[in-house]
């Protein structure tokens, strides 16, 4: 098993693109395999269901262009979940040239259940026996040759995370086509009765429904009709009581009852179990694995949820301790040297005064205030990626699923909730961030229950989740996925946050030349709606104006505050301005000291670190000025409001795109605004009542 060979080393022969569908069970490593083969960065995570739609990657091997289609992970090709339907429709209707079936070598029997269904499709299959290293570690001995003989397909052991076996796999893929024969896998026998029925159905289909033969693989169609697959019956326009069906499966129904789907499932499981027995040799004495030992504690009925919240607190705490010194460093660099450089450059180009102001008090103040959070975002994404890759996120969903199931909700929707905190990250400290996070989860669960009992009645979809083994994520994978997640924040800063910062600057300066910013257009609108927020503790025009701008996207709240407050606090430094090189030296030395401080923070004890960090915050310009307009309690109420208030324009566009109507956006708008106001009201008034943070 070797690394993939560079395609450049072979003469390029122009051929059509070979379409290779990559199918397999959830969490068998399909996306990782594609990333290793094609050098792409499809999102991967050590929890099932990361890929819920088809994704494509392109590569070239020995002059053969190959399009890899990453299908959602499924346990079968039955039509019960969205993932199964997507994968199945593609395989049946789009007919890829080859299927690479990614089989988790540590769970052979369960994975072979899907393999058997893929073999029914009449498409060449190559099995990538993935996670082979872990199977070997467990003491499993898999007879690859015997497996190839039994299935009638090429089997290639792979370790996608280490790019092992990738070249062999590509050779197998291109080799299958080079032969020109496109040899099909051996047809597996499900027993005499079933095979007789399949034969009769196939003949009947060819005879009575010839058009269907063009649309579906014959054997697959016959098996699906026999199972009574509603989707296929409807698509093929065949009734379950059709004479063809009666003739072919009548005797099976008599012998096994109406539920032939269960009969087929039993047949496939029996075959998968038999194949596994033939090719797999397990160690005679089974040790209790580390994963099981950890899970006994982490999945404990009583400890599971407290452990999850404690883990997330630790993530937020580490995020803050690690990133706060770098955030302060960035704040200093942006508001000091960078502002001076841009001011000097604009003056040098004889730019008008308003342009200098737009650049420094609009763009730098607005975008810069948001960019200060880049270290926080990246640190946060690093720890979240670590939890995902380690396998803990799947446990978190499982633990929450158990708790939520009794309330009619299911844990699958919980995973995005755990991960989707990016828009709301900018906050003051790890503990505050964590408390807002917990508040968000609690409210989401409560609202979920409310909606489930009012607007969205009906049964919850089935939620099956496999718990992957704990793994130490590789440094490369951590780096790539932290960057992939974090870079979106930089994209936002360079696109709509920049655009809104420019527009906000104009709104704060119109009518042109306005002296007091409170009298600007934005100030007037902010002042007009400020009374609405007075009971929440932030009834000032500055906060209201920021909330209006935040309708575009929540990060813009911070940017707008940066623009509003920088105008109130701006003061020229005393003495001559430092030279360019002095600025550079200062940036370098302050970065080094930020690094030292972050290191000290991370290794310090929890309490002392927090105090240190909070003392330091007082020195920061924007934070200290904002602190004059807010009490700790009103600031918390403000953050709670920002966390919960109406979806931004991005969400509006998503709603319109998904539902094709504004109705649901309107519902979400009204409900979230009311919820945000109510929660902020309870936080502020409740806090005042108990004398907290006022």
């Amino acid at each position, binding site marked *: 098993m070797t690394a993939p060979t560079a395609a450049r080393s072979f003469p390029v022969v122009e051929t059509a693109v070979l379409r290779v569908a990559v199918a397999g069970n959830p969490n068998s490593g399909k996306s990782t395999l594609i990333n290793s083969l094609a050098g792409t960065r499809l*999102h991967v995570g050590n929890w099932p269901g990361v890929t819920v739609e088809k*994704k494509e990657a392109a590569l070239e091997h020995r002059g053969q262009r190959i399009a890899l289609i990453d299908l959602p992970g499924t346990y079968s090709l039955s039509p019960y979940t969205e993932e199964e339907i997507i994968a199945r429709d593609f395989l049946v209707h789009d007919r890829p040239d080859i299927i690479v079936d990614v089989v988790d070598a540590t769970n052979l029997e369960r994975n072979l259940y899907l393999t058997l269904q893929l073999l029914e499709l009449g498409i060449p299959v190559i099995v990538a026996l993935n996670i082979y290293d872990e199977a070997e570690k467990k003491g499993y001995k898999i007879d690859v040759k015997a497996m190839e003989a039994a299935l009638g397909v090429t089997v290639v052991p792979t370790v996608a995370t280490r790019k092992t076996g990738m070249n062999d796999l590509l050779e197998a893929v291109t080799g299958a086509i080079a032969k020109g024969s496109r040899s099909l896998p051996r047809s597996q026998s499900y027993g005499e009765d079933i095979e007789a029925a399949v034969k009769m159905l196939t003949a009947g289909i060819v005879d009575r429904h010839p058009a269907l033969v063009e649309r579906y693989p014959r054997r697959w169609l016959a098996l699906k009709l026999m199972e009574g697959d509603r989707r296929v019956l409807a698509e093929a326009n065949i009734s379950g009581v059709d004479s063809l069906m009666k003739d072919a499966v009548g005797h099976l129904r008599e012998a096994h009852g109406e539920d032939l789907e269960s009969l087929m499932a039993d047949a496939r499981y029996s075959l998968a179990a038999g194949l596994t027995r033939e090719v797999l040799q397990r160690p005679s004495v089974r040790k209790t694995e580390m994963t099981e030992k950890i899970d006994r504690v982490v999945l404990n009925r009583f400890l599971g949820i407290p452990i999850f919240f404690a883990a997330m607190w630790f993530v937020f705490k580490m995020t803050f301790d690690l990133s706060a010194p770098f955030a302060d460093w960035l704040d200093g660099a942006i508001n000091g040297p960078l502002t001076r450089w841009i001011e000097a450059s604009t003056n040098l180009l004889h730019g008008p005064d308003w342009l200098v102001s737009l650049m420094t008090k609009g763009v730098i103040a607005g975008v810069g205030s948001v960019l200060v959070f880049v270290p926080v975002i990246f640190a946060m994404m690093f720890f979240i990626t670590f939890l995902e890759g380690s396998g803990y996120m799947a446990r978190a969903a499982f633990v929450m699923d158990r708790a939520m199931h009794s309330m009619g909700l299911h844990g699958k929707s919980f995973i995005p909730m755990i991960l989707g905190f990016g828009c709301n990250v900018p906050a003051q400290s790890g503990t505050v961030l964590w408390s807002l996070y917990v508040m968000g989860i609690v409210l989401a669960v409560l609202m979920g229950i409310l909606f489930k009992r009012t607007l969205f009645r009906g049964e919850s979809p089935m939620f099956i989740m496999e718990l992957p083994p704990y793994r130490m994520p590789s440094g490369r994978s951590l780096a790539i996925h932290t960057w992939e997640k974090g870079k979106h924040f930089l994209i936002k800063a360079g696109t709509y946050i920049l655009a809104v910062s420019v527009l906000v600057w104009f709104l704060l300066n119109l009518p042109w030349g306005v002296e007091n910013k409170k009298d600007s257009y934005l100030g007037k609108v902010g002042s007009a709606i400020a009374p609405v927020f007075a009971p929440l503790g932030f009834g000032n025009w500055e906060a209201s104006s920021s909330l209006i701008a935040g309708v575009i996207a929540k990060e813009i709240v911070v940017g707008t505050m940066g623009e509003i407050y920088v105008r109130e606090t701006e003061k020229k430094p005393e003495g001559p301005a430092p030279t360019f090189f002095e600025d550079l030296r200062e940036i370098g030395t302050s970065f080094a000291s930020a690094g030292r401080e972050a290191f000290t923070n991370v290794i310090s004890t929890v309490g002392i670190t927090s105090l240190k960090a909070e003392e330091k915050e007082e020195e920061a310009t924007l934070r200290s000025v904002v602190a004059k307009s807010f009490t700790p309690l009103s600031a918390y109420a403000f953050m709670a409001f920002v966390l919960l208030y109406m979806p931004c324009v991005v969400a509006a566009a998503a709603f319109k795109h998904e539902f094709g109507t504004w109705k649901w956006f309107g519902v979400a708008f009204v409900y979230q605004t009311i919820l945000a106001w109510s929660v902020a009201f309870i936080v502020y008034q409740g806090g005042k009542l108990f004398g907290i943070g006022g």
Partner: protein
Amino acid sequence: MGIVDFVLIGLIVGGAFYLLYRSLWKKKGYCHGCDSAGKCK
């Protein structure tokens, strides 16, 4: 404020609105940071 200033302002504001339209609306709610929002081609 001269004609050049007005032209410059027009260009800047127009550019800002275009950037907003392109990055927010045209992408139909593409969620930066959401796992499965975009397609990788």
